[in-house]
């Protein structure tokens, strides 16, 4: 784990004084992360130059594509939302020393749960049906994560393998459901019918972003509160630093693993539900592709601090929202953004090494 703490000889972390950024820490964690981001942008610039384009022009096109107009900012907010939610859940797991790579599957199953509730629920009370659909998604995600936790705890399968393999099963499960009960007959590709209009997420006027972004920011604040101000959060942090210390302090490690996995699954499932209700307005095949791994990127970029994940997720969301107009205007393939994400994460990992 790249647990970002200063070199304290005591294994148990001190209770933090207040929620939020911990810039006062001695090892300048966020400065290191910023340097890592800058380094990866430089590398990306070199890659653009090698491909025969002007890196500065590409960067300008990327930025204007992301924040050029209120609608573009709104699109970036929408893009940010799933990373913010799933990244927060992943960060909570990582804090407890549990490497949950299952966000992708949890998002997929969450979207499926939301679509199922929205299609079955015939009700004109829009707020009620929307909330019920989102809760259905969170519940489905929590169940999926719980399944991974059960395999991990019950049979000692490493959590990375349990969550990874379940991702593939989840993607195929969504495809199967779309080919069967939830599918739209004769659509040509795998998708559900359009969900009832009442269940769609409302949009925020100047940006045309859906309210999912606000939900995600509130969720990040709640996760931060849970991490720093509750007994559960304290137990998570102790377990992340030293499992024997947590056991000695009387915390039940299996229970902790269960609850943090289910929590992360629920948030990821909610992210899937928001994607379905806010963006696509139907369940489509492969809508969750790649979100799970990038959630890990975002969690590490935000130093596993739920509130710091907000700018980290915005960074990734803005990059991705701007990448398409960079491709259109300059001709630099938008896949460059994935390279930037990978490089950033490598540099962050190297720069925030644990001090033993």
């Amino acid at each position, binding site marked *: 784990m*790249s647990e970002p703490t200063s070199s304290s000889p005591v294994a148990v972390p001190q209770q933090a004084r207040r929620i939020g950024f911990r810039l006062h820490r001695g090892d300048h964690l966020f400065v290191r992360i910023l340097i890592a981001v800058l380094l990866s942008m430089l590398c990306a610039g070199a890659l653009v130059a090698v491909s025969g384009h002007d890196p500065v022009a590409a960067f300008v096109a990327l930025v204007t594509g992301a924040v050029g107009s209120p609608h573009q900012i709104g699109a970036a907010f929408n893009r940010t939302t799933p990373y913010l939610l799933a990244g927060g859940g992943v960060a909570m797991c990582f804090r407890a020393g549990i490497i949950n790579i299952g966000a992708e599957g949890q998002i997929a199953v969450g979207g499926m749960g939301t679509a199922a509730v929205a299609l079955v629920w015939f009700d004109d009370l829009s707020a009620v049906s929307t909330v019920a659909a989102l809760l259905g998604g969170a519940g489905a995600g929590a169940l999926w994560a719980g399944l991974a936790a059960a395999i991990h705890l019950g049979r000692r399968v490493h959590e990375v393998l349990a969550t990874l393999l379940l991702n*593939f*099963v989840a993607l195929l499960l969504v*495809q199967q459901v779309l080919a069967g009960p939830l599918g739209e007959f004769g659509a040509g590709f795998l998708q559900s019918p359009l969900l009832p209009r009442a269940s769609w997420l409302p949009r925020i006027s100047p940006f045309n972003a859906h309210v999912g972004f606000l939900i995600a920011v509130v969720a990040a604040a709640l996760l931060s509160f849970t991490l720093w101000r509750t007994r559960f959060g304290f137990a998570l942090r102790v377990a992340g630093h030293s499992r024997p210390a947590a056991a000695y302090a009387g915390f039940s490690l299996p229970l902790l693993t269960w609850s943090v996995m289910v929590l992360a699954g629920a948030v990821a499932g909610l992210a899937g539900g928001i994607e379905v209700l806010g963006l696509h307005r139907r369940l489509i095949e492969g809508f969750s592709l790649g979100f799970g791994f990038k959630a890990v*990127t975002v969690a590490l970029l935000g130093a596993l601090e739920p509130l710091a994940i907000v700018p980290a997720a915005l960074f990734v969301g803005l990059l991705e929202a701007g990448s398409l107009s960079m491709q259109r205007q300059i001709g630099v393939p938008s896949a460059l953004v994935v390279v930037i994400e990978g490089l950033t*994460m490598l540099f962050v990992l190297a720069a925030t090494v644990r001090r033993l």
Partner: protein
Amino acid sequence: MSDFLAAAIRIATPLMLAALGGILSECAGVFAVGLEGMMLAGAFAAIIGAWLSGSDLVGVLFSMLGGAAIALAVAVVAVRYRADHMVTGLTANILALGLTSYLLRVAGGGRPIAIHLTPLQAWPIPGLADLPVLGPLLFVQPPLTYLALLGCGVLAIFLTRTQAGLTLRATGENPEAVFTSGAEPLRVRMLAVIACGAIAGIGGAVLSLQQVGTFTDGMTRGRGYLVLAALIVGRWNPWGAMAACLFFGAAEAFELRLQSFGVPVGSYIVQMAPYLIALAVLAGLGRSSRLPAAIGQPIRTE
């Protein structure tokens, strides 16, 4: 039946090569989560190399370089900078996915470049190929399949019968002891990871160069993760891992069979088989599998 077994061997070949690399890395104490990315980079480099030079051999050499390049990133970050192995491996996979699809488009001037090569043909081994059952199964295979089988034997001998193999395994069990004996565990681990990348890169070349003759985005599709399961099932033994890969290959071949017979099971449910089987086998092994003692633990160098 022999068609079915041939299909199982064909599907298992890339897994087997990746598993050989993974054994090197994990026995030296570094989790091989980056196998997926190393295979993908290898698959891409193989096609580009073979297309540029017109020679399949150059393609295979390129695939080793491609896999090793991703592995170098893993080695530096996970071994030298002591970051978490699992997360570093995943990162390498993202990087490989991004780099290959970016470069594929740069090479095509904005659109993915379309390269279609003839897949590698079978090399029947004279004499042995005429054996009644085993002949067509084992001795009429494309060249990289022979390489995988040969590599298994070489790796088994290397790990158990040579000084270097002993040092490698000791690094995975007890790096301090290796340091005391005068070797450098850090260097051993870095070399093991880079060699892992080169071998897994050939596994990627099997997918692109030997099986289809082209490269598509993310064409490894989770095979690297299946190999991780195969390593555990095969207990980090080359022959055991090979058997596990063949088993996964057989599961997939069986799935293809079912589909071609029009069995009325949802096709997507059937596609889950390899992953579900991997989970079930891992769960069945449960507590009995024993990892190298120092796997995942950083080496301190003060």
